[in-house]
């Protein structure tokens, strides 16, 4: 900054009192300080630049790209140019006539030439089950198509006259679509284009979203109830003993997730250790073994155990520096032990509780492998269906829509959490 600018700054704020303070080379102190700080900020930025670039390349970019798929699917629009044109020239209510079928015939021929019938069929099949083979079969016979096209195509398969098929193709003809979000919310469009709930026997996603949130909240609560006394014990014992105990907390943390989940199967299954002991000691008879795994109970028990360290560690780090003399002072002033705990100790642990609860909840919401192994049929979470669409059905757009909804839900909860508890109040360790 030159002198003129410095003078202008001075003129703009006449109340400034550092008029006479200058550095050794005669520049105003404030300007020199700002410059030095800017330099430090630049250096700090350069230091984090590799990490920032890493996060952008390996995290932000792929996730954005994947989430973009939830609204963008060009499989139809890229490969069916004639029909896309017909849709753009004719309004919603136009009955597909000879010109539409002529466009369809020319697209089917190009599907045959480019061998892209599978791609287009798969896209339409997402919205209208059973139509993939309609495309592959018709494309195979496309070279023989002669006008009048309507008759020729309906000769291959009558299903081409289905108004719902034309509605679905119209929707798919735009690469930007909301239909995957509709599907992720158990909704669909009928032949007139109205949004309707899907048949009751196939509604699943909303229920799983609710169950995921409920189970995650429950697991957070159980880890808090189990973890709080343990963290307190760790924080108050002499260092030698608490270090030993800490190893017991961390040991499972260092063990492979699959090993821990499998151990729970060994313990909990109906021919497992716990049931066998209860049968042997006569608590249960052989016929009435308790089913503790391959259901919701299994998911809750195994996930509570696996996520427990994420609750204990932040709690411990907050409890360790709490000075025991506060509680002692409260007791000496006549507070009962409950009052002293409730009014003096508990409020000081809030940052740890807040951090632990947030960590456990967010991890639980996205958990996948444990519910897949021990959850049976009613212990599945939404992430299991996201994985299903990523790996098995290969409907990445639907998987992305589900993931985006889950992300949105978590962000809303995070915002609520910030309003209620305050993110500044959070201490992770």
């Amino acid at each position, binding site marked *: 900054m030159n002198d003129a600018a410095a003078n202008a700054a001075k003129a703009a704020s006449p109340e400034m009192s550092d008029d006479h303070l200058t550095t050794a080379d005669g520049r105003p102190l404030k300007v020199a300080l700002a410059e030095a700080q800017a330099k430090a900020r630049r250096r700090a930025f350069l230091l984090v630049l590799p990490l920032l670039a890493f996060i952008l390349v390996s995290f932000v970019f792929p996730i954005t790209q994947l989430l973009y798929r939830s609204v963008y699917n060009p499989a139809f629009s890229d490969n069916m140019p004639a029909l896309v044109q017909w849709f753009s020239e004719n309004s919603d209510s136009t009955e597909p006539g000879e010109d539409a079928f002529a466009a369809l015939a020319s697209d089917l021929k190009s599907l045959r030439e*480019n*061998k*892209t*019938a*599978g*791609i287009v*069929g798969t896209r339409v*099949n*997402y919205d209208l*089950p*059973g*139509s*993939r*083979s309609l495309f*592959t079969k018709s494309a195979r016979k496309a070279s023989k198509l002669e006008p009048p096209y309507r008759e020729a195509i309906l000769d291959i398969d009558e299903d081409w006259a289905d108004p719902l098929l034309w509605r679905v193709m119209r929707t798919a003809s735009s690469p930007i679509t909301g239909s995957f979000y509709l599907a992720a919310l158990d909704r669909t469009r009928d032949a007139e284009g109205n949004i309707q709930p899907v048949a009751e*026997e*196939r*509604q*699943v996603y909303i*229920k*799983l979203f609710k*169950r995921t949130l409920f189970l995650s909240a429950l697991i957070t609560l159980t880890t808090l109830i189990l973890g709080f006394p343990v963290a307190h014990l760790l924080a108050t014992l002499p260092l030698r003993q608490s270090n030993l105990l800490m190893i017991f907390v961390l040991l499972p943390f260092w063990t492979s997730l699959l090993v821990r989940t499998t151990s729970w199967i060994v313990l909990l*299954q*109906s*021919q*497992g250790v716990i049931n066998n002991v209860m049968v042997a000691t006569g608590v249960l008879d052989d016929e009435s073994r308790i089913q503790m795994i*391959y259901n919701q109970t299994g998911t809750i028990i195994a996930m509570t155990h696996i996520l427990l360290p994420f609750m204990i560690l932040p709690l411990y780090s907050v409890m360790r520096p709490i000075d025991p003399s506060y509680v002692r002072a409260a007791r000496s002033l006549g507070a009962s032990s409950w009052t002293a705990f409730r009014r003096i100790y508990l409020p000081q642990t809030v940052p740890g509780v807040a951090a632990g609860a947030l960590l456990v909840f967010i991890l639980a919401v996205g958990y996948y492998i444990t519910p*897949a*192994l021990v959850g*049976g*049929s*009613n212990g*599945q979470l939404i992430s299991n*269906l996201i994985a*299903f669409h990523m790996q*098995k*059905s290969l*409907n990445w757009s639907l998987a992305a829509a589900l993931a985006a909804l889950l992300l949105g839900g978590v962000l809303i909860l995070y915002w609520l959490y910030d309003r209620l508890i305050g993110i500044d109040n959070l201490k992770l360790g």
Partner: protein
Amino acid sequence: MKKTLILTTALAGFAFAATAQEVNVMSWGGAYTKSQVEAYGKPFTAETGIKVNWIDADNPATPIKAQVEAGNVTIDVADVEYSDAIRLCDEGLLEEIDHSMLPPAPDGTPAEEDFLEGALTDCAVANIVWSTVMAYNTDNVNGQPTSIADFFDTEKFPGKRGLRKSAKATLEMALMADGVPAGEVYDMLETKEGVDRAFAKLDTIKDDIIWWEAGAQPPQLLADGEVVMSTAYNGRIFNAAVAEGQPFEIVWDGQILDYDLFVVPKGAPNKDNAMKFIAFATDTQRLADQASWISYGPARRSSGALVGKYVDGKTEMAPHMPTSEAALKNALVNNFEFWADRDTDLNERFNAWLSN
């Protein structure tokens, strides 16, 4: 994946520099590739002098798309699953295979009639048949289950059942257990009534089902006594029973057959050798030879009679083949076209049914 690609490229590169006459075959690794090396690879090189380079992959279908689209194809032959063979072919990533180049059976039956139904497609030739079967632990079942209907009969055979958590195979088995002949299963599943009927049958044992997802789970569940019967891949049960001595038995009634197939990626560098290799490997004797290394069945009818003993030298393989005459009595061939159309739809309904 990337590592595989680099490895593949490097391997192929070296091999290319070494000899002109060669073929690069990508398969699944482990005991499966070993069976192919012994039964196809070694005799092929001995007879033709063409060197076979074996490359392992987690799923050989995965690199094909990447290689063809990048225009840098290094694989000549890949061993893929049915669904991938059809999908890659529909997307134009595979060479078409002329069925007339395949050798006829020893008795002169043309290849097109000798191969099992569905084993030949425009772009693929099947080499083995694997199957989803029902198996039980003889120590834990009271009596002897003999049919798929027994799987759903918890009164006659009380105890938990293991089933794969997927609509595929599960719905077909439910219908067959309900008395639908194998030949009508897929027609019935095309209709809403048929699907309702399958789910109604599943409802009768829903509370007794333990769902599995990985192929290693059913033998474990059976050994632990957690279930008394389970569906499973036949190779897993064979290994547990013969190699580990577990008291497992397979009930072949209502089994569902699937193929593994050879395909040639579009633009394969040694396309001619690839076709020669496929024709050689899928002849009657080679397919029969492979069966003595692993309990998967040959994809040709004429190979069945030639299947010998397991490598331990004492176990006759024939009765362990999903393609043995007894096993094929009431067997269903997985209909890929049906599942390509209905997979999403039926699995959505299946997932909804599960969570209710």
